[in-house]
């Protein structure tokens, strides 16, 4: 019978084994906790990157909208510019007013 076997059968190693199992459990706990934290961290980072990408896209949309807005402003200005308005007025048969006749309401 070997010395190891004797230790096992005589209870000397049982205490060691118990302690090792405890250590193993602790280590397992640490590994699991670390894994969970790492997974959470990775999820957060991924989520953050995803959100950042969305914000990035939205900011690009805002810039595009800003450009469209400026383009519309210039188009409105073109359509309401004096030469265009004059053309439209003439087409609608309007005549330039030379004077304004004022009506003076009499005091009762």
């Amino acid at each position, binding site marked *: 019978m070997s010395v190891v076997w004797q230790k096992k059968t005589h209870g000397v190693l049982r205490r060691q084994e118990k302690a090792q199992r405890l250590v193993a459990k602790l280590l397992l706990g640490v590994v699991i906790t670390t894994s969970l934290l790492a997974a959470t961290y990775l999820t957060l980072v991924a989520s953050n*990157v995803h959100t*950042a*990408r969305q*914000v*990035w896209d939205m*900011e690009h949309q*805002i*810039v595009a909208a*800003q*450009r*469209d807005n*400026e*383009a519309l*402003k*210039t188009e*409105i*200005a*073109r359509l*309401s*510019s*004096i*030469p265009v308005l004059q053309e439209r007025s003439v087409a609608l048969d309007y005549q330039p*007013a*030379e*004077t*304004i006749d*004022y009506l*003076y309401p*009499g*005091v009762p």
Partner: protein
Amino acid sequence: MLRGPEARLRLITVVLIAALLPIMGQLVRLQILEHSQYQTEAEALVQRQYALPESPWGVIMDRNGDLLVGNMPVYDVGAEINMITDTQMAAAVLAPLLNLPEEELRQTLTAPEDTQELIWRPLTRHIPSESARKIQALNWGWITLSPAWERYYAEGSLASHTLGFVNAEGMGYGVQAFQLRFLRGEQIARVGAVSSDTSPMPDELMEGNLIPYPGTDLCLTLDRTIQAYVEGVLDQAMVEYKATGGTILVMDPHTGAILAVASRPHYEPYRYPEYTQNGQDTLFTDPAVSIAYEPGSVLKVVSVAAALDSGRVDLNWSYNDTGQLEYGGVVIRNSSGTAYGRQDLQGILDNSLNVGAATLSTQVMGAELFYQYIRAFGFGQTTGIEVTGEASGLVHLPTDWDWSDSYLATNPFGQGIAVTPLQLATAVSAIANDGVMMQPHIVAERRYPDGRTVSIPSNELGQPISAETARLVAELMARSVETTAKAAQVPGYRVAGKSGTAQIPTTGGYDPQQVIVSYVGFGPLPDPQIVIVVKIDRPDVPVSMRWGTQIAAPVFQEVMARLFTLLGIPPSNLRAGP
């Protein structure tokens, strides 16, 4: 030979530790000992300076909010020419979209044969959004479209001198160049991690948003309707009188706000590179603000106002007009060449008597007092209006090295002194505004991108004459219009004014043929709302017609009458009440 599991375990442990040790050592070296060096190298690989999209400039509006200068979204086009597979086809498709000759484009798109490096070449600038969309639809990976902005002048050449332009170097003319620090949006450039296409990585968002910050909008005092009308009248006058140039300026005497200012010749601001290329840069200079001229008899109103305000004369004062006056080595004569006998201040204005004006400056006031008033009216100094290149004009003072006594005799009727139309309008506005001279201004309001609005207050430049003197001079001017300058009369309204016919100085004298005719006035009395200066350069009409009263006065009348209508100013009898 190892015996037993324990020995083998130990051996495995030792081997593993031996294998891990160099790894650990390398980790310590990389992560701790040489950490900073590798971090720097890593940053150098991904970190670049990147610029946010070009921000739009502030827009410019008139006083009613109508757009005068806006921003047109455009694109700059480039190409990574090594990546093109069919240059011939690419050139054929792109040429009409880029408005470039096909052969020229094909040459640009052809990469040198012996190069391995990626070559990017700019193709053209500022193509419209419509063309950019068509290019995008081609889905060619090698073509690059960079968003940019182009200034858009909604009314074409309207108010071109006032609006001006700014070139790529930030130099320019008009209100745009003067207010550049407000108009130009903030161009943000940062250093940070960029992706392979040099766009900032998402982490960069932590540093702030990437939306371009636009410039400040400007609201001007100009009224585009009045401006367009005034420009139309000026164009008509230029044709009718075959003039080489001209200016019409409309100003509110109570605030100094410029309602319209038109000058000819003018230009189209968006075509400024063409003018520069053709050597026509002189067109950019605004004759209303930047070019001084000898104003002639319109300055007599200032001389009369000065004499009255000094207390040396009153409305009962008179002198004997012999038709000439010798002073400082020159002989002053009336423009008609005749003597008028006993004349008072009204007579000086009615008959535009050079001798009378010279009498006031030389015999009544003296040099010190006369030039004190000339300076108080703002001549020889800039007004501080918000456009580039304002001229101060030319006033010779007795303390100047080139002073001649003759200036004192000629300056009161507008010879030997140079003023800008803006200075003239500012000075006359003091007479229209109870003696208070307001600073002319063109910017009414700034609208910041964060929503703040700042109104630009009107500033007083001073009070060269008393309110009482101002009213007396205004009355003299109004009577002058009613008796001798009927071409300037506006039915139903009392207006005040004075004409001028100025010779043009040349080397060693005056041009015997050419003149500058002008008319300055305001109305309606007794509470003038507008001051108008009309100046027509070198009219090519018969000599007998070349007078301010015959050319500039009818133009003044036409503008004044229409402005009363446009501004909704009722006739004098209605404003006075029943």
